[in-house]
């Protein structure tokens, strides 16, 4: 576990990357690589695809480090957005949705997913555990239909229209569930945002 007193901030690592510091890229990878891979693998269901997403995400982070603006959000949010965008593009391009959906349908969608190792961001183990617990509690605190709509979008890459079709619910209902669910998550998780968050 990293000692916060000696560990550089996420945003500082990105600044160093912009100057061509490969060690900073390695440190950023060590902090975020695992959880980005977990998200990509959950979306794509293929190790090779998830690996490609993580590789491309860090390649883009390396190229675009000079354009990263810490005032617009945390490094974690920046990397997560890039990784999810790439994974969703790949998912849609390969038309694998049917297979992924079938796989997911065999699982019990009401059960909470197993927790990943999480971002190994600087901070004490206690802080990281607290953050993971907060995310789990916030998800558990949602009404099941709200949580289901968000999980289908986040972990399976379905659009609101696709969720409505899959659940055979009106589109407007799905939109409302997702919006209210995300508002609740935002309110519950605001104290746990990563460093540099808006």
């Amino acid at each position, binding site marked *: 576990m990293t000692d916060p007193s000696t560990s550089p901030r996420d945003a500082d690592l990105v600044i160093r990357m912009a100057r061509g510091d490969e060690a900073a890229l390695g440190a950023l990878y*060590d902090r975020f*690589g695992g959880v980005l891979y*977990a998200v990509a693998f*959950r979306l794509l269901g293929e190790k090779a695809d998830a690996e490609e997403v993580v590789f491309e995400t860090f390649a883009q982070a390396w190229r675009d480090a000079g354009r990263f603006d810490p005032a617009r959000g945390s490094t974690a949010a920046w990397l*997560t957005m890039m990784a999810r965008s790439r994974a969703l593009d790949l998912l849609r391009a390969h038309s694998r949705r049917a297979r992924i959906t079938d796989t997911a349908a065999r699982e019990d969608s009401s059960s909470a997913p197993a927790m990943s190792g999480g971002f190994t961001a600087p901070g004490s183990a206690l802080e990281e555990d607290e953050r*993971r617990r907060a995310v789990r509690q916030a998800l558990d605190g949602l009404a099941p239909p709200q949580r289901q709509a968000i999980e289908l979008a986040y972990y399976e890459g379905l*659009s609101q229209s696709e969720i409505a079709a899959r659940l055979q619910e009106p589109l407007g209902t799905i939109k409302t569930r997702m*919006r209210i669910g995300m508002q609740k998550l*935002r309110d519950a998780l605001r104290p746990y945002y990563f460093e540099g968050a808006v």
Partner: protein
Amino acid sequence: MSGAGQDPRELAAAYSLGALDPDETRAFEAALAGSPELQREVAEYREVSALLAQAAPGAGLPAELRARVLAQAAASKQAHLPPRAPRLLWLALAASVVALGATSLLWYSTRQGLVERDRAIAVLRDSLAAREELLAFREAEINAILDPNVTLTLMGEADSPKPTIQLFWNRKTNRMLVHAFQLAPAASRRAYQLWFIPKQGAPIPSITFNTEPSGHGLVPEVQVPAGMELAAAAITEEPEGGSPQPTTPVLLVASFAPAGS
């Protein structure tokens, strides 16, 4: 969809999850570009999205991936370094006893390196110019939509998988941006034709267009007939070159709201 009256702020959460349909995404991004409030909203939902990653089921990160990421970074850094003069050249110059043939070979090698670098720069310049052109086109599109004189008329139903066309009409400049989606491409040697229907008189033929295989189509600058009150617009399928009057049944139609309403 947001263009049909939904508050874009209500779509910020779904946008941050990547859960909007393509046409909704385009409309939302057009609103996002000009709204700092919306940008803050999206930024905050992206923080939530980053936290949700914590709940992804654990998966073993391949050990060799780290080395691959770092090797790629090192390679790209090397590619951006200025070309170094061959070491032998410096030795040759220092010794001042190099044979003319060897010097010529080194000169040729260095020149070849410069030629290759110039080629690479030319390719990058072309790519940059193409991106700038695309960006300018996108900006023009966004400006055309966001202009306060623009009114939106929808042909088809919002939130429907059926063909839909948005007409962004700038009544001040009498120009219209036509945006079609979920509209299958017309048959071979056929095209879609837009008609303006005045309060009185026959339909006035306008542009012909076609859509991409994705069902998406965009015509940015359509001249709207001036000097008359228009009641509606319609779409028919016609021969590729268009028709002076409709020859097939109307596929889509929409009435225009009276000016100033």
